[in-house]
């Protein structure tokens, strides 16, 4: 049976985990470089070959224009959304992009789900190499505060990577699950998840029932564009200013040097979690040398505003759960950025208790995803996650005001029915605009999609169309419409506001299959050529040997003919022709092979009595 794995598709790193049958606990799978962390970096070389992970991270320094990191920030977003990121990240966005961003890597264009699919494919192959068998299904984690479009984009990425995504699980919920399994935690738990690019806070209640444990999320909040990246950028900005001031070098004119500086400040950030001071020292284009000491007090002063930004969602989540900080029994830290002492201190002081960080903050989300994957795979169900939708779902009404139909923090699956009717006589269509967010006006919320309900012409208010909105266990919205007058299901043509349409995904899938066919053909050519060369060498060697004199002139001629056919076939790329010529040569050399066989037998039995043979 094909395996199901858990995947943490992160901004900075991605991981794949499975349930280790030896221990019965989830475990992360290491890649070819020994680490379980796969840098979420993708590079496309001049031949169009895709490079993922550690080697791509190296290419970031030498080929930044062909390499992308932090693509998760672009998932499910439109060009207008990402203007802020463009100032800070070297994304090369195609000018023709609108509702789906297209990123340029070298001379090719890719959508964020396609790039994420490359990362998923890499992790899939790590797992396949580990198991020695195919992996076709996965549980993939997403930030709890991801909206519908961001979730859908993640699911699309899975599909493009050839994975059936059994479930999207919220990252903090997955982490809570991993901790719950590990520590047998009970009561009210706050999960503070500060990763590379996203921040989430989830408040959960862990309940033991006679059937098993229930992990019920009470509330969640966050910021899908707040993470360690922002800390790196703050440091990078300071270094840019210093370098420009002291050395008169403008880093924006030197993308390679800018990546080098970025790499150095990230290393400094990591070191400052353990040391009080670090020295940055490197050469600049033009020969200047930077020598810059950073001490922890300065570092903390610089990043304090970023850490402070995480506390606003924390307060909102607690208010929504109707709990005070002191009513939280356990606090769990997740994500690489929680290694920073200032972050630990800030969280500990707010909740008035030391936070848990026993499990590796990089691995814990993938471990939880693997546990959920095991349950969905059909293993014994020992626990149940009840998650919530992070944002209210609404529809636009008169005057651009949003009517909320499913409130935020509703347990999912969740649904709502709305009845629509016509406002004027002989109206034949009703426009429906679906939004996500907490604001009053449609223009301030996130547009999810628009569609039209078709109604037969008639007096105003006569039509009755019921639309059912259902948020599934992945946090993704489904809509269905039914005409109450005719009881007929209405086929909806939904225009998603952001993201790929089904047609686009189909096309991408076909392309990837075409690529796969091309790959298959290439492999066939290589294999046929290798076989042809082996047989050609063997034939020629035999023909040069003494036994070839036993062939008739006719036989000799047909062998020579078959050899020259195969030679010319090998020069080309038609593997089917090569196979045909290999068969021809095999036929022509049948007698020769018999001669050889007999001679070999004679040699072997020489000097032995018949009864010994």
């Amino acid at each position: 049976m094909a395996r199901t794995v858990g995947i943490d598709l992160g901004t900075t790193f991605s991981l794949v985990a499975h349930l280790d049958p030896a221990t019965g606990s989830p475990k992360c799978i290491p890649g070819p470089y020994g680490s379980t962390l796969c840098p979420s970096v993708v590079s496309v070389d001049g031949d169009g070959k895709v490079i993922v992970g550690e080697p791509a991270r190296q290419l970031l320094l030498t080929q930044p224009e062909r390499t992308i990191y932090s693509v998760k920030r672009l998932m499910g977003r439109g060009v207008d959304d990402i203007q802020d990121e463009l100032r800070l990240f070297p994304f090369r966005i195609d000018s023709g992009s609108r509702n789906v961003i297209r990123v340029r890597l070298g001379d090719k264009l890719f959508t964020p789900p396609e790039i994420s699919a490359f990362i998923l494919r890499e992790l899939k192959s790590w797992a396949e190499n580990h198991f020695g068998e195919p992996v076709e299904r996965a549980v993939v984690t997403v930030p709890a505060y991801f909206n519908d479009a961001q979730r859908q984009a993640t699911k699309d990425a899975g599909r493009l990577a050839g994975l059936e995504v059994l479930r999207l699980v919220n990252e903090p919920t997955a982490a809570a699950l991993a901790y719950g399994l590990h520590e047998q935690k009970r009561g009210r738990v706050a999960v503070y998840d500060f990763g590379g690019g996203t921040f989430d806070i989830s408040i959960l209640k862990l309940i033991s029932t006679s059937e098993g444990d229930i992990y019920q999320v009470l509330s969640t909040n966050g910021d899908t564009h707040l993470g360690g990246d922002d800390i790196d950028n703050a440091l990078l900005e300071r270094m840019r200013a210093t370098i420009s001031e002291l050395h008169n070098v403008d880093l924006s004119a030197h993308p390679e040097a800018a990546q080098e500086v970025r790499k150095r400040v990230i290393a400094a950030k990591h070191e400052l979690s353990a040391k009080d001071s670090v020295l940055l020292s490197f050469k600049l284009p033009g020969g200047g040398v930077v020598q810059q000491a950073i001490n922890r007090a300065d570092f903390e002063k610089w990043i304090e505003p970023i850490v402070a930004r995480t506390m606003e969602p924390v307060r909102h989540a607690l208010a929504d759960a109707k709990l005070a900080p002191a009513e939280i029994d356990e606090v769990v830290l997740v994500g690489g950025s929680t290694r920073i002492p200032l972050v630990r201190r800030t969280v500990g002081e707010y909740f008035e208790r030391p936070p848990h960080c026993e499990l590796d903050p990089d691995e814990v989300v993938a471990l939880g995803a693997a546990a959920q994957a095991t349950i969905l795979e059909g293993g014994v169900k020992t626990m149940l996650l009840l998650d919530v939708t992070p944002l209210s779902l609404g529809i636009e009404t008169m005057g651009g005001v949003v009517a909320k139909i499913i409130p935020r923090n509703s347990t999912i699956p969740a649904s709502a029915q709305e009845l629509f009717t016509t406002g004027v006589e002989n109206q034949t269509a009703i426009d429906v605009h679906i939004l996500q967010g907490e604001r009053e006006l449609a223009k301030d919320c996130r547009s999810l999609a628009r569609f039209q309900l078709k109604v037969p012409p008639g007096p105003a208010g006569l039509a009755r169309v019921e639309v059912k909105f259902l948020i599934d266990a992945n946090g993704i919205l489904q809509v269905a419409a039914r005409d109450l007058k005719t009881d007929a299901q209405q086929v909806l043509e939904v225009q998603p506001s952001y993201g790929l349409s089904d047609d686009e995904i189909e096309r991408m899938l076909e392309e990837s299959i075409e690529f796969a066919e091309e790959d298959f053909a290439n492999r066939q050519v290589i294999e046929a050529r290798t076989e042809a060369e082996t047989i050609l060498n063997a034939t020629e060697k035999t023909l040069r040997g003494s036994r070839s004199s036993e062939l008739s002139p006719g036989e000799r001629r047909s062998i020579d003919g078959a050899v020259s056919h195969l030679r010319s076939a090998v020069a080309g790329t038609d593997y089917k022709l090569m196979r045909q010529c290999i068969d021809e040569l095999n036929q022509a050399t049948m007698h020769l092979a018999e001669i050889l066989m007999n001679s070999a037998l004679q040699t072997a039995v020489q000097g032995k009595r018949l009864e010994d043979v």
Partner: protein
Amino acid sequence: MSVTQPQTARTDATAAAKCWNCGAASAGPHFCPSCGKIQPLLAGTDYFAFFGLPQQLTLDSTALENEFHKLSWKLHPDNFVRASEFERNLSLELSAQLNDAYRALSEPIARIEYLLAHLGVRKEGATKQQAPPELLEEVFELNESLDELREARADGGDTALLRERLGEAKSNFQDKLAEVDDELAVASREWDAALAANADPSKQTALLSRMNDVLNRRSYIRNLVASVAKELAEA
């Protein structure tokens, strides 16, 4: 988001009682007692009936939560990943219904709102926003103070006194909110008693409409308190 095609979980009242799988006569609730397969909801199942409860407003919240967890464990889509598409859809619909029902019933106010909407007494989004007559004078004074505060802020004048006055008004209205909640609790108990005694429909209707009036007053006062809190926070 995605579009779902014909929903399967809807059945008409006549076919509802039979199990779709084994044909057993009295299938449900939620599962067929004979073959164990998940079942569509019976037509007309309201949120109370989903939990096997009468339409009563006084509920044991711990018992409700336990039942919610028990049903979640059975109905959740996690259990149906390998099942047929039909069963997967049923699980999705029933879990959604369970969560919707629990959301509405677990909070006393939301529970009354649901009951009134379900019985057609209360139209969603059509709550009256006129000031209740007995509050008119106080609301008038409050609005005056709010205007003065805004003016004073715009002119950079002293707002301390106004803020104090508004703070008092706010706590006054918060007390009224508590009174209204008490009124709702009393009405809820009367409703439950009427329901248990099978009281005549006119008495039931009168109770429902009284609760609706109190709810309207409640939402009006709540909005007042919220707007005062907002102005005070900004000042």
